[in-house]
């Protein structure tokens, strides 16, 4: 086998594996959300389909496919069809640069080890706003339109905060490549960026909640003001795609958080800090990464059912008047500390 053929074959394998794992995680995150919300609200939640409700995602999927795929007469057809695609794409595409393990055999466990790393991710994540805005515009209806406009303003505002928040991490690491960021965090709990740049972490996680439209920042679909926001006019799998898109970007954001602040696939015990030499260690690294992501996702679900929603002016105020100056101050403080240490 020539190196070129091998490269394409293994890339395709990794893409298919990563996409399948993501789709499975999306399905079970929805179930986890329903079970955890039921637990929080002292209900039982879906537990009928299969053991402990484990086949519920399958039933939901079949139901979504078998519903009438209705396109109302008043919509702008092209954008109405395009929007669910654009909502779903960013979650899948942002997987590309995230290292989900060290290596298996001779293959590095990352789809594309780009040297621009984080800039690619921010570029892809910001595409997410198009899906929601076009859903609002394409629906040609009042509430979806308001939801779309609100959402665009919210997402671009918090994008500034998110970009500002991560800069100290890259000042400390000195590289934008995410594999290097993980390599820098190997070698001890205190090397994790969450301890080296705590303010960055707080700003980043808050902005991540806002970017994925999760509570306390779920203004775009504030159901008691806007019916359901941007997805009001949708039905069948197109409606389901909005939710799959939300959950896949939630998982992608959790993966980003783990990579930037919680050491990615490393764990400073049992010698799991170094790139794997054996297959067993390689598989253990993937398991460590997925467990960390699952914990982050559970945190996002828990916060959703524990916190009330911000008012829109409070949301914009927090983004522009608190996060932007805090982010700038954080960068200057990090610069001065690094300079003082020499």
């Amino acid at each position, binding site marked *: 086998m020539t190196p070129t053929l091998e490269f394409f074959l293994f890339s395709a394998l990794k893409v298919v594996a990563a996409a399948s794992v993501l789709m499975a995680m999306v399905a079970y995150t929805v179930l986890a959300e329903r079970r955890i919300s039921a637990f929080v609200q002292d209900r039982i939640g879906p537990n009928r389909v299969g053991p402990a409700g484990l086949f519920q995602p399958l039933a939901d999927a079949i139901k979504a496919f078998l519903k009438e795929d209705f396109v109302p007469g008043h919509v702008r057809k092209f954008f109405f069809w395009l929007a669910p695609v654009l909502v779903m794409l960013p979650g899948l595409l942002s997987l590309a640069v995230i290292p989900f393990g060290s290596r298996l055999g001779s293959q590095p466990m990352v789809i594309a080890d780009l040297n621009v790393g984080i800039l690619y991710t921010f570029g892809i994540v910001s595409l997410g706003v198009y899906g929601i805005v076009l859903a609002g515009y394409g629906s040609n209806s009042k*509430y979806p339109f308001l939801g779309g406009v609100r959402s665009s303003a919210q997402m671009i505002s918090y994008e500034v905060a998110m970009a500002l928040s991560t800069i100290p991490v890259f000042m400390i690491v000195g*590289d934008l490549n995410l594999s290097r960021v993980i390599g820098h965090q190997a070698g001890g709990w205190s090397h994790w960026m969450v301890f080296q740049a705590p303010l960055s972490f707080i700003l980043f996680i808050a902005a991540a909640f806002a970017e994925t439209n999760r509570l306390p920042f779920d203004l775009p679909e504030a159901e008691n003001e806007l019916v359901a926001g941007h997805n009001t006019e949708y039905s069948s799998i197109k409606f389901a*795609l909005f939710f799959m898109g939300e959950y896949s970007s939630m998982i992608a954001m959790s993966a980003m958080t783990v990579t930037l602040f919680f050491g990615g696939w490393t764990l400073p015990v049992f010698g799991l800090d170094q790139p794997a030499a054996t297959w067993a260690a390689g598989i253990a690294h993937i398991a460590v990464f997925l467990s960390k992501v699952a914990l982050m996702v559970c945190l996002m679900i828990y916060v959703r059912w524990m916190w009330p929603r911000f008012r829109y002016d409070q949301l914009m105020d927090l983004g522009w008047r608190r996060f932007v100056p805090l982010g700038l101050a954080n960068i200057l403080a990090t610069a001065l500390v690094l300079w003082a240490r020499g």
Partner: protein
Amino acid sequence: MVEQQIWQYAPVLILLLVALGLIGGMLAASAALGPRGRRPPIKDSAYECGMLPVQPGGGRFAVKFHRVAMLFILFDIAVVFLYPWAVVYREMLAGQAPAVLGGVLVFVGVLLVGYLHAVRKGAFDWRG
């Protein structure tokens, strides 16, 4: 051939194709599998909680949203300029500390003046 930098982006292209195939397949399957219902006129109207729609969708909306879009472009470009600086900061601290530290102080200072101007002009006052 695969050592060239541009080839690193080939897997991203594969991922894009797989993602588009997946989503396209789901949309097509749903369109093919779902039943075709009747189409009374009320079903074609915009959904407003069962009320008849009172005005066409997507009418007028507050100009504040436009202001946020402009501020975003200004600040996001400024933030992107900070990334290359962040990458070389520690390397340059060793030999050219005044240049790399002074440079960013001036840059953030200019940004801060612009930001304070926007605050004083009330650009972030959502309720006004």
